[in-house]
């Protein structure tokens, strides 16, 4: 598989929503160790709303679909997750404006644009113990796969592994961004909830393409 169509992307997001909703409590638990325990709820809330409004979402092209997703997520995801996930989707939308299919290289553009959106809003860097520590490695891995001419399935498999490894590494970091930073050294040894969640999500998404 060398191309994702609008339908494929819609499918992927549909699956992503299912995974997030199914893991609501688990994601809350991840956020309980050094955070405030609401991450699963906050992010699931936006994706539940997405599902509710699913039929009326524009599915004309990838960009407009992701843009509408981003608006709903911004409005309905609580806490930090609203702006972060919202700007990720809106960033991705910007990079896929008007497109009805994307190559792996274009998909990498889209992911990089999502990362950029998150960083513009949240101001965090690699190593700050946020979901970026899973998302950036995934994005880099996808770009490498594209450069090597790999197909989506292999690329997604590698990308998911990069996310899991990145999430694992957050254990050794003391948080600088987000709520974990308020507990100082106490956040050591515990992974970041957002990064772990991305590891889970990307792993499940492999089956969706």
């Amino acid at each position, binding site marked *: 598989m060398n191309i994702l169509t609008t339908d494929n992307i819609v499918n992927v997001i549909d699956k992503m929503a299912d995974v997030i909703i199914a893991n609501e409590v688990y994601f809350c638990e991840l956020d309980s160790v*050094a955070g405030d325990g*609401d991450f*699963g709820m906050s992010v699931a809330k936006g994706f539940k709303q997405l599902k509710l409004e699913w039929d009326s979402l524009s599915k004309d092209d990838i960009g407009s679909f992701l843009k509408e997703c981003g608006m709903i997520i911004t*409005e309905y995801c*609580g806490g930090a997750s609203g*702006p972060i996930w919202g700007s990720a989707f809106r960033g991705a939308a910007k990079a896929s404006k008007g497109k009805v299919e994307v190559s792996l290289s274009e998909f990498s553009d889209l992911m990089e644009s999502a990362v950029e959106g998150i960083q513009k809003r*949240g101001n965090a860097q690699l190593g700050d113990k946020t979901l970026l520590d899973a998302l950036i490695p995934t994005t880099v891995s996808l770009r490498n796969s594209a450069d090597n001419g790999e197909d989506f399935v292999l690329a997604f498999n590698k990308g998911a592994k990069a996310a899991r490894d990145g999430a694992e590494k957050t254990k050794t970091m003391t948080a600088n*961004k*987000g*709520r974990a930073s308020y507990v100082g050294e106490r956040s050591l040894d515990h992974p970041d909830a957002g990064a772990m969640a991305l590891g889970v999500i990307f792993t499940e998404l492999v089956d969706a393409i």
Partner: protein
Amino acid sequence: MKKIINKPEDLVLEMCEGMVAAHPNMLTFNKRNKLLCRKELNENKVTLISGGGSGHEPAHAGYVGDGMLDVAVCGDVFASPSTIQVYNAIISSESKKGTLLIIKNYSGDIMNFEAAAEMADEDDNIKVEKVYVNDDVAVKDSLYTVGRRGVAGSIFVHKIAGAAAEAGLDLKEVKVVAEKVIKNVKSIGFALTSCTVPAKGTPTFQLGDNEIEFGVGIHGEPGVAREKMKTAHELATDCVEKVLLELPNSQEVVVMVNGFGATPLQELYVFNNSVSKILKDRGITVYDTLVGNYMTALDMAGASLTILKLDQELKDFYNARANTIAFKK
């Protein structure tokens, strides 16, 4: 989890409605955006907006009213309200003098309040200023972190900036006053039990029978250290010590002994008994004392100490009239 609620999803909405039902002369409710607003807005004063996640009741809607806030924006439990909610708070309470957002220093709140401020500025040409409350001294502040949490000290910002706005100061001036309060207010808290976030249904952390978390925030985050349970007097000694370190040369102060939700007033008064003695021994004059549940963390047992260092300006604004549900002066 045993709580007097219906479904966790409906909790915040029903709480807001129950609040308006109890205080129909004080508040109006914008249901779509979960805004609790003053009954009568005064378009000739700076508008003050605060808010954040729910679970801290009476904060923040309890401080909406004469001499304090104009709007409280209610997020879900412990989750910042969305950008859209805050944006709607700003545009629905526009005054001729602009709007000050009082933000507790958490990345979620910051992102949402800032994005909303940008929207209101760009799309609607509303002057919006922001202050960031960061009174919690539990964790060391440094260049490399996102700074300290905003906790119970927020209430003094609402009170004093509220009085400044009511006195007719302009936006920049009210902001300067608010920042002066922020510079002079420090807090530290400790938990005897965890709270239980309704959507999760189980306690965020577990404490042994003889353990406390020292240096906790107001979201069930663990503190900076797990310690052995101590007497009220030892706890007060630790707290006063920690807070005064950050408020050198304090001569006259306001004290707030704040309960986290499940600690009875009886214990808060015992704690205050020690606090007041320790401050006296240190030669510090207590100008006023607040004891009660002002900024809670759901059903957490525990308390925090907040000290506000006064000067004449702060004292005058502190003394101004205020008439809200949870704070009257």
